[in-house]
């Protein structure tokens, strides 16, 4: 469908082609990722669910789920939003629509092959950087670098005077995540060993969140909320404080992941302090967006994209409160390695950032396709299934984590903790399956939007038109 543009001249490619390609790829990977998550959760609740084959063992499937979601869904949704927000904010075209299309193609091919290799057991054995180093290099130089060049060149060729806060985030974060991937995977290229390797593994894992997932998700909200509500951003100054404090504070607390290891004590203390300072960008972001909503709160009920966005912002509040304090030594001592952390990680990825991205993908696809959403009812179904599924997952895993933490501290025999967790594991599976179901419906809804959605006239936004089915 979009393949014919791969060899076309850049001028002949309609604006938004890359964004559409990225958008549908992202939704597809979201379906795959949450499907795998549901499958894995079933294995944790019922260990004899699918057995007897290496390929469907939990240890082979777990990292495929994680990386399908991070690299497939979240990062491709980011790329999609960058492909339509950056030109819109610079009042210009994408620097190279063709490069964007090629990036999207290489991303899908590279990610598929990387996930298959992981699935059959080719791994570097390092959490969140599990891909073997050739795939790391493809991701870094084949995907992130072209995306970064495209975004930064679009910003450089803008026809506006200033640079809006979202574009500050997009330009800086695509650049910084490249550095993070390059340095974070260096144990593999340069064969670093021992505690240096472990530290760099977690430095990479932490900074993927700190310099890529949470800031870019927040940057999306800086675009969508003013755009949809028609209100100006409450404060550009606070937005910039968010930006700078992310770069300074959120890039440093990596060693809180290894509090029990013999890393230097000064480094662990430094990480704890910096971890609490993350509350500065967190509060700045939440306050800025919620104050932007002033006078338009009815849209939280009426408008699908605002509903998703603001839910994401609300979920950022517990996320950042947990994140700020669970890296202090005393709280870390209680909850490290328990289901609490699993709940927290899903609060960041499936809660805060995913809700913001879903909103941006809904909005962007309608914009780029110039078509109105096929079914508002299905979108509502999607919202409630993802929200209830996520909350079921989050609450059950938080409780399971507190049980595990107490079991650890009071030296309860491990198997008793496993027995106590069993109902929560079932709840986790139900929640994950609800999210998966909602996403399947979403994929159908967006596909039908592209095929039969009502055409939106030029110069109008889809959400400005009365809803019709």
């Amino acid at each position, binding site marked *: 469908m979009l393949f014919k543009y791969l060899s076309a001249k850049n001028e002949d490619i309609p604006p938004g082609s890359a964004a559409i390609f990225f958008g549908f790829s992202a939704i597809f990977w979201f379906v795959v990722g949450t499907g795998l998550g549901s499958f894995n959760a079933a294995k944790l609740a019922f260990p004899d669910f699918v057995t007897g084959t290496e390929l469907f063992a939990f240890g082979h499937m777990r990292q495929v789920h994680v990386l399908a979601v991070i690299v497939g869904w979240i990062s491709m949704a980011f790329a999609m939003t960058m492909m339509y927000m950056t030109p819109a904010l610079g009042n210009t075209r994408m620097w190279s629509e063709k490069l964007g299309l090629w990036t999207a193609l290489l991303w899908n091919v590279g990610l598929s092959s990387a996930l298959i290799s992981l699935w059959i057991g080719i791994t570097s054995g390092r959490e969140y950087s599990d891909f073997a180093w050739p795939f790391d290099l493809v991701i870094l130089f084949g995907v992130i670098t072209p995306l970064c060049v495209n975004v930064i060149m679009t910003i450089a060729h803008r026809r506006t005077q200033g640079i809006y806060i979202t574009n500050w985030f997009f330009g800086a974060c695509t*650049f910084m995540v490249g*550095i993070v991937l390059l340095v974070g995977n260096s144990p593999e290229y340069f064969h670093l060993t021992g505690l240096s390797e472990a530290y760099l593994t977690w430095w990479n894992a932490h900074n993927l969140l700190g310099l890529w997932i949470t800031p870019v998700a927040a940057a999306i909200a800086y675009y969508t909320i003013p755009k949809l509500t028609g209100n100006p951003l409450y404060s550009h100054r606070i937005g910039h404080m968010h930006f700078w404090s992310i770069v300074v504070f959120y890039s440093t607390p990596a060693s809180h992941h290894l509090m029990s290891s013999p890393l230097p004590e000064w480094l662990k203390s430094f990480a704890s302090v910096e971890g609490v300072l993350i509350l500065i960008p967190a509060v700045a972001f939440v306050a800025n967006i919620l104050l932007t909503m002033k006078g338009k709160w009815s849209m939280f009920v009426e408008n699908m994209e605002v509903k998703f966005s603001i839910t994401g912002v609300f979920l950022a509040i517990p996320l950042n409160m947990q994140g700020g304090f669970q890296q202090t030594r005393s709280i870390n001592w209680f909850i490290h390695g328990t289901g609490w952390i699993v709940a927290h990680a899903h609060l960041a990825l499936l809660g805060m950032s995913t809700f913001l991205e879903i909103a941006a993908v809904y909005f962007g696809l309608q914009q780029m396709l110039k078509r109105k959403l096929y079914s508002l009812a299905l979108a509502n179904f999607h919202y409630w299934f993802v929200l209830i599924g996520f909350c079921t997952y989050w609450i059950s895993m938080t409780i399971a984590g507190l049980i595990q933490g107490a079991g650890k501290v009071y030296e309860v025999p491990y198997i008793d903790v496993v027995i106590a967790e069993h109902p929560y594991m079932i709840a986790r599976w139900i929640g994950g399956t609800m999210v998966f179901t909602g996403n399947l419906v979403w994929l159908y809804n967006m596909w039908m939007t592209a095929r039969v959605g009502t055409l939106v006239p030029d110069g109008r936004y889809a959400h400005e038109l009365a809803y019709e089915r």
Partner: protein
Amino acid sequence: MAFKEYRLGAAMVGGALGLSMTITLFMPSFDLRSAVSTKMALEKQLSAGFDIGFGYADPLLLGINRPITVDLETDPKTGAKLDPPIRAYVYKPGVPMPPNIRHPHDLGKGVYDLSESQGQITAVSGSNHTKGTQEGVVFTLALGEFNGEELTYIENASVTKGWTPDATLAAAGDKNTHLISKGKTEFVVQGCWWCHTLLPEQTQDWQAFGAPPYLGDFNGENPTAFGSDRKAPDILHVASRNSSREWMMMHFFNPRLVQVNSIMPRYDYLWGDKDAQGNTIDFDKWRAEYLEYSVGKRTYPPEVPDYAPNSEIRALIDWVLSLK
């Protein structure tokens, strides 16, 4: 535009990121590089070999080209009885050596000096991580004194004692051979570390499960595979708590045989097709009988088949039992 604010901004991003990188990457590297290898680190390095994750020598992570750990009761060259038995690490020709031999700094002060002067480790010829050693080499650990401090160092027993890889393997026999390195590859590939951490936690684990980790304990290890999510107990010192090979066999074949409430997956596929006697393992029959047992129609569960000496599960159990 006269004032190009984005130039200033880009420089500021570079400065802020550079500062954070300096503090979190460059400064800790001084502390990390000063680590002196402990005995535990040397044992882990020599038994694991070069690399456990993806690499040139074993791209599909099948556990080929790995060193073999043996316990020797007799001297492979002279045939004299060794009391107590010595643990030796056999690198056949072509097997890549652990990184510390190629990068002396990884061993740390004293350990490297002793290993070079007393242990003759630099006498190994032609090793790199793709081709491995030319003639093969046998390493052992020995105790020495450096500046008044007692340190464990690496000895090249092929040079100091004349032990060849083949003679050493023959002297040990299959009973005293441990496929620890291949077992760690299995540990990584099967994703055991998604649930079992290898990093005991402060206070509670250090009291109940064994010694806290020291800075030098991890020298040369790659990947460290600490794990982060503990759906199951920490296993850094598991063999000190349970060293029964029979228990491990039952536990890996179907964890519900030894612990009805376990949520660990079955690893019966690591047995392969044939058992120790060369008979084909009938998994369907086993499962049917196990089902009868689990609903109360049988008094005892079916017997777990003996694994073949070259099976993947043997290597995995060898590795688990090396964690003391």
